[in-house]
């Protein structure tokens, strides 16, 4: 028995070593990349800082929504796309009833929550049937539900689902328009408290405070009984089962939390952007959020809110500077565009590769 425990300990130590290296090297590489890119882009410091702060407020919530499933051992939840869809449905709902301002936004959040809970439950059910291959399943599930989403808003909108606001439907009376103007709730959350400490610099204090609160709640949640159970399930499903934890139920709850947070995150994201691309806003959500988290040094089995925030910061810094850097370096801004997409896919590919490699080494 002692012997066995010792082996377990060594295994854990080896794993943490690799994770520690991952947790250091990846962010360092990206810090260097950001620094070089910033130097090459020749953009003014205040402009870059302003853009990064805006994007941090816009995207952090979505990135943080990925953390709970990682801790519950379900890997990177590409299924947050469904949460984003729930958020968008709620925004379409409030636009239809012309609800505006912070109140309208609050109603959108309230409407999105039950929808996201149902979606999360369904995702959780499916992922429980695909244990060990959650990531690819959640990704395909995202594609699949995107098809259903399009079916609903292209075919059923206007025919089965009544819409009363003019200009929301296509001129044929069937199907939603490609873009929905969210002018009524634009900056509804950012504007609650917003300061301009320096010319050209705008800080949406309220949104940032909400994100900090979310981080604190998350830290607290992981210390509760349910949070501890999730950790246990994440470490070893079998042991958790033996210890009397309902593994399937815990996993479903983890996904529900993630989906609800993603729905809220998408609402925060879109109130900042101001227009909803009905059939496209949600598609890249999973990709960008996952890439951000990984750039911060998270792995498939370990993620903290610090990594989420740092990763969001660096990923979006790269987004801002890479077109200009490409322009100045190669005389072609498209290279920068392609480069940042490559970074998004490449970093996910690399993280999955290292994780699979390491897992194999453990066996």
């Amino acid at each position, binding site marked *: 028995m002692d012997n066995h425990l010792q082996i377990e300990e060594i295994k854990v130590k080896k794993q943490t070593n690799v994770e520690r290296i991952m947790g250091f090297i990846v962010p360092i590489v990206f810090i260097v990349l950001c620094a070089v890119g910033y130097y090459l882009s020749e953009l003014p410091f205040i402009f870059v800082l302003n853009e990064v702060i805006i994007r941090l407020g816009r995207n952090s919530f979505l990135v943080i929504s990925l953390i709970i499933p990682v801790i519950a051992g379900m890997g990177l939840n590409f299924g947050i796309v469904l949460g984003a869809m729930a958020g968008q449905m709620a925004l379409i709902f409030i636009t239809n009833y012309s609800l505006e301002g912070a109140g309208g936004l609050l109603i959108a959040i309230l409407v999105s929550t039950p929808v996201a809970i149902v979606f999360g439950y369904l995702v959780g059910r*499916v992922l429980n*049937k*695909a244990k*060990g*291959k959650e*990531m*690819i*399943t959640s*990704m*395909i*599930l995202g*594609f*699949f539900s*995107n*098809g*259903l989403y*399009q*079916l609903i808003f*292209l*075919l059923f909108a206007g025919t089965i689902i009544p819409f009363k606001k003019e200009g929301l439907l296509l001129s*044929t009376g*069937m*199907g939603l328009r490609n873009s929905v103007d969210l002018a009524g709730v634009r900056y509804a959350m950012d504007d609650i408290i917003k300061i301009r400490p320096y010319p050209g610099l705008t800080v949406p204090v309220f949104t940032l405070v909400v994100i900090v609160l979310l981080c604190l709640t998350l830290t607290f949640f992981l210390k509760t009984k349910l949070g501890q159970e999730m950790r246990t399930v994440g470490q070893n499903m079998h042991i958790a089962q033996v210890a009397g934890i309902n593994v399937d139920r815990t996993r479903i709850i983890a996904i529900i939390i993630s989906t609800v947070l993603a729905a809220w995150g998408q609402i925060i994201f879109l109130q900042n952007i101001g227009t909803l691309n009905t059939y496209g806003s949600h598609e890249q959500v999973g990709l960008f959020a996952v890439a951000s988290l990984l750039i911060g040094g998270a792995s498939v089995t370990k993620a903290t809110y610090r990594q989420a925030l740092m990763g969001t910061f660096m990923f979006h810094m790269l987004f801002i500077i890479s077109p200009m850097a490409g322009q100045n370096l*190669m005389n*072609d801004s*498209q*290279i920068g565009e*392609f*480069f940042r*997409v*490559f970074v*998004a*896919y*490449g970093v*996910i*590919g*690399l993280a*999955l*590769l290292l*994780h*699979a*490699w390491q*897992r*194999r080494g453990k066996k």
Partner: protein
Amino acid sequence: MEGLKNFVDKVGYPRLIIGAFLFILCVMAAVLAIPVPGLIGDILTRVGMNGILVLALVPAIQAGVGLNFALPIGIVCGLIGALVSIEFKLGGFTGFFTALVVAIPIAAIVGYFYGQMLNRIKGQEMTVGTYVGFSVVSGMCIFWLLAPFRSPELIWAVGGSGLRVTISLESTIDKVLNGFLSFNVAGVQIPTGLLAFFALCCIAVWVFGKTKSGAIMNAAGANEKFATATGINVNQQRILGIVLSTVLAAIGIIVYSQSFGFLQLYNAPLMAAFPAVAAILIGGASIKKVAISHVIIGTFLFQALLVVSLPVINILADGSMSEVIRAIVQNGIILYALTRETGGDLA
């Protein structure tokens, strides 16, 4: 009742559901008086066009690597071959075979290294493969922009560098296979050369499966421990499977492009693996088991569904609905395969 259950088990739910759906669409097409010969001609062309890309999945499944979601890696190699052939202004069959001759060795080398990588991450091939494929496609976007091609057919007219997003093949290899020995029966245009080439590839893969090395590869895929015990180098067999799969994908995209009439670069290959995977699953394959018949049946059912649904839905609803139905069917089928208990431990 027992008989019905046996029948369903034997045919499999995906084939049955898609078959029934296709049947309903056909009835609707007949009711709506959509010209049938045109539809049949389209189906034949598209089966030949997409068939080899679906066939490319077979060696990977046989070698035990699962569904090769990294098909875009091979596709990119095929695109390079086609570009080289156009750069030298080669047209017709010379151009087509030059493209193949250039693409195949590149695909074999790339496939070898990809196979080496997959051997280090056994059990996670599908998840990792998907993202490695995505990374390669997005990385190649930068290559297309910087690649040293000079032919005015290939590069942007303005600026004088960087490959175009779509390249017309009209003056080079457009429809070389489709047009070869093509004839017309009762209004149905039969793309003889295309179908013959697809059949040739199917036969080649089938014959390879019957040879000694093919049998060894199958054994390695069927049961790794048993194969190791009998002295088979499983890792080597898995690499062989991936190399064959990558090479077939390269051939597949060249055949696809010559039929389509355009070469699609940049982000076009990003999602190319998913329709192919869906087709082979509809045909009755699983993550562990596959036959050439699955390829043919699956490609036929899936492509027929797409071809027939387009005009029917155009009349009944909106034109973009056909794309939506493709997304639902395609991803629904992949999802079904992933969540099945018998899916094995591959991810």
